[in-house]
């Protein structure tokens, strides 16, 4: 996770919000804790919404699956 954390911070520093979509999605897939997964999926979903990213519907469905949206 340290490496992923560094990549996240780096993407934030560059304002690379499209990258945050995939990085937060990756973070979500790295944990089995549902609350933690949903936290990361939420982060990914928000940046996908902002960017009009093609993953936004898929991420919405992930959160809907856990009744979190």
């Amino acid at each position, binding site marked *: 996770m340290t490496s992923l954390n560094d990549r996240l911070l780096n993407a934030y520093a560059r304002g690379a919000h499209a990258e945050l979509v995939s990085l937060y999605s990756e973070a979500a897939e790295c944990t089995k804790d549902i*609350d933690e*997964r949903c*936290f990361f999926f*939420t982060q990914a979903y928000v940046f996908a919404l*902002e*960017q*009009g990213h093609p993953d936004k519907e898929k991420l919405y469905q992930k959160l809907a699956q856990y009744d*979190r949206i």
Partner: protein
Amino acid sequence: MSYAPSDPVLASVRRPVEHANGLPNAQYADPDVFAAEARAVLHTTWAGLAVQEDVAEIGDAKPIEFLGIPLLLVRDKNDTVRVFQNICRHRGMILIDAPRKIEGAIRCPYHSWCYSTSGKLVSTPHVGGPGNNKHEAIVNDDLGLIEVRSHVWRNVVFINLDGKAAPFEEENAALIVRWHEHDKPLHHGGPDSRFTLDVACNWKLAVENYAESYHLPWVHPSLNSYSRLEDHYNIEEPGAFSGQGTLVYRQLTGSNGATFPDFEGLSSKWDEGAEYICLYPNVLLAAQREHAYAIILEPVAHNRTVEHVHIYYSTSDTDDELRVSNTAQWKGIFEEDIDVVEGMQKGRSAPGFDGGRFSPAMDGPTHCFHDWVAAHLQNHEEK
């Protein structure tokens, strides 16, 4: 500050032009009066805010502060220009601080509540706790962006801040009819056809100066060589607009004899005729055979106005050199007016000035505007 309907100062402004005085000094020189007047005159009417070319493409967003109110001009995904208050419904954070394109949603930089370009609240991340994006107390449909009533006419985006004015087409029916021949697509000349002038005067002085032709031979002697005072006529539509027209409009001609293409279908009246009208409160317009312009007066303070000038043509394909010359010509003319409007602003600090007296023959358009302002001041009750 508010005036009683019977206030003698306003009553003197509203007398016939032969006997009237102009608006009192305080309407120009007092910051508190500026704020009160804005609520009475600029919030309650259709004020010019921007032009639709400020958000030329779908998704473009531009923050604009108007009378201290943070607004957001947006062209939504359906190609409709909208105006919102530029704040998140959560904590009142400013949403967008510089012009940019919205690729997907408008995301608040504070807690990332997201809005569509049509203002709908579409996401409230973690609002029900970490990873939970809903809460029964937060109803998205109730928490969209606060939209400001707006209307686009002649490419100008007008807003009605208090939401209570009559519909734009009703309020401005007389000018829409008067200029119905000019109801044509207007093509903005682009970056070389827009400029701003930052002027140390109250916004009303810019209106008043534009409304009358009386000053032309003294302030614009170059115009007088072909556009003499006697070739102009006054335009007065009480309660709506005023200005001046000319009977000897002369097109700009390039060194090779080229001119801009005319707007199609105009009657012969416009061959040598042109009109320059102040659409109350703060938009100055020109209708001419082959180009038009709009000047939006941004009232920044009681003694400061930014004039946003935009020049339009009948086609998007105009000669670059001629277009640049045209911008330079208008900029030069408008700059010639700066000394007099700034001089009048300074003059409003003289306690002996009583608003001044009007030339009944020449100042009708100015008096028409003063009467309109005074009527709004009389009718406005401070809440």
